[in-house]
């Protein structure tokens, strides 16, 4: 009987196990039912891929999926760029005028209800007479996801050893070069994680997209939502499983890549 105070009690393990089961159970059920041959979600009629086929024949859904994908890629890239810059400024910039306002603005979208941000952005676009469609949604998503990227990157930046940059400076680099040569490579895993996070959030967003989109440019969540309101459709199961599968593939690739790079002796960056 060891008294290591780090030992888990039965209660802890049960809590963990139940928690994880709770998180994953609905998803597992959804994936299983996407292969259900029967139209009725309640009856199991054998394995089938008909819902997948229906999805690929559904023009409207495919358009929405493509739209979501494009918005996701563009907004994630923009958000990663801006978010990383913001993280650098906040983490290395010490005190500067307007820093409080800056960090306040940057982190507010993290907590603010999406209905508020969605409405405010729409009103801005209306005032600017901007045509609502791909670009307005992209801009809105960038604004929203920027703060998530900044959080992830800043966490990593604060944890990095400052003496590396100082060593680079000591060896003759000016600060910017030192940053690019030393800090940036070490930050890359976090920046990549930030991009993926921004992409997922954009892909997933319903409320803000609903406010800021225009006619004919519905995103996938908007389509799914309108379908779901009418009732459970098995095709949705298939779409959802595809999305989950896609994200799972991306996550596994990413963690394998970071595992490989850490095996090569570089730092494995936590999120």
């Amino acid at each position, binding site marked *: 009987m060891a008294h290591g105070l780090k030992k888990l009690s039965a209660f802890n393990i049960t809590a963990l196990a139940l928690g994880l089961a709770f998180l994953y159970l609905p998803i597992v059920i959804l994936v299983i039912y996407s292969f259900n041959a029967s139209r009725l979600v309640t009856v199991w009629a054998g394995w089938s891929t008909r819902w997948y086929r229906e999805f690929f024949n559904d023009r409207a859904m495919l358009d929405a999926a493509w739209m979501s994908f494009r918005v996701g890629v563009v907004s994630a890239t923009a958000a990663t760029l801006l978010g990383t810059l913001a993280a650098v400024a906040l983490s290395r910039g010490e005190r500067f005028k307007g820093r409080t306002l800056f960090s306040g603005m940057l982190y507010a979208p993290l907590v603010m209800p999406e209905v508020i941000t969605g409405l405010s952005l729409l009103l*801005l676009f209306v005032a600017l007479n901007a045509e609502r469609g791909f670009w307005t949604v992209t801009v809105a998503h960038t604004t929203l996801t920027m703060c998530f990227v900044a959080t992830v990157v800043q966490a990593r930046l604060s944890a990095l050893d400052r003496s590396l940059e100082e060593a680079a400076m000591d060896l003759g680099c000016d600060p910017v070069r030192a940053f690019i040569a030393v800090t940036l490579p070490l930050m890359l895993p976090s920046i990549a994680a930030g991009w993926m996070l921004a992409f997922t959030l954009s892909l997933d967003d319903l409320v803000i997209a609903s406010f800021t989109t225009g006619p004919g440019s519905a995103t996938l969540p908007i389509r799914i939502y309108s379908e779901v309101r009418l009732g459970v459709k098995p095709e949705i199961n298939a779409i959802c499983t595809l999305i989950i599968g896609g994200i799972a593939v991306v996550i596994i690739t990413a963690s394998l890549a970071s595992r490989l790079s850490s095996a090569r002796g570089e730092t494995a960056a936590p999120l």
Partner: protein
Amino acid sequence: MRGVSKDGRWHLWPILRGSPPRRRAPQDDVRCWKGKTVSARRIFARPARFAAIAPYLWMLLFFLVPFGFVLKISLSQTAIAQPPYVPQFDLTQGWAAIQAALAELSLDNFKLLISDNLYVLSYLRSVVVAVISTAILLVIGYPIAYGMARLPRRWQSVAMMLVIVPFWTSFLIRIYAWINILQHDGLLNKTLLALHIVSAPVVWLSTDSAMYLGIVYSYLPFMILPLYATLAKMDPALLEAASDLGASRSKAFWLVTFPLSLPGVGAGVLLCFIPIVGEFVIPDLLAGSDSMMIGQTLWLEFFTNKDWPVASATAVVLLVLLLAPMLIYDRLQRRQLEAR
């Protein structure tokens, strides 16, 4: 060559300061050594601040400025027009036109919000739902975060992955998954019937319970992660010291671990409470239609009634309501960052 002194070493101060290198006096050494850590930071600070320009401007334009518009529209009236509100400010029409437009602004919408029970109840319901949900989230999330923090180091990153992955798989999908299970002839009822726990299918959907389930399900990672982050940072020697001084395991938890985890608790609570107040999708899909949360009310006003001014007023009041918690959260975040 600029910046290189007689002994051949690079000196950065002259490059940045633009002044010729000074001969090192004895007092310089003390300051220089002590100053090396400080000034190194300052050397980085200047270019780092430039990085803030682009995101700063972006957030000013796309975050701060829009609130001005929300405020302005909230003071306007609805109209059958494109866009559907009056007055409209047309900057080309000169100052007099603007003054006239300003005169048309009124607080009518806010009066409506205060007087009409529909809205008052909606705000109340939102706060109540948020408080209850956050409490449930804390009670469920704390043991999970605690368990995670006590795992062996290797397993902690795996556990964190496991907690984050559902969060990355589409929020809408996860709610939909619950609809799947909770429907009248869904999996839950089938299981209960098969186990003879109930004799007839129970109505799960369109109830408050379904809504709470959905909220807890969606926000659990937001509660777990800040809690885990704080708990993982705790020095295990503190628990040993408590035990050494006579505290049993449960006493040690309540007297040492819990108080030290309070910053994480605060962050988790606020990270959940604030957005839940304005939630729309979950109550819309899972809750009954007898009473609405404020997010649903706003959506209704905007999309169904096409009443932009009232919707904006709703948003303004919601923002004012949430201002205090948001400021507390911001203060907590900054303190956490400074503590690093």
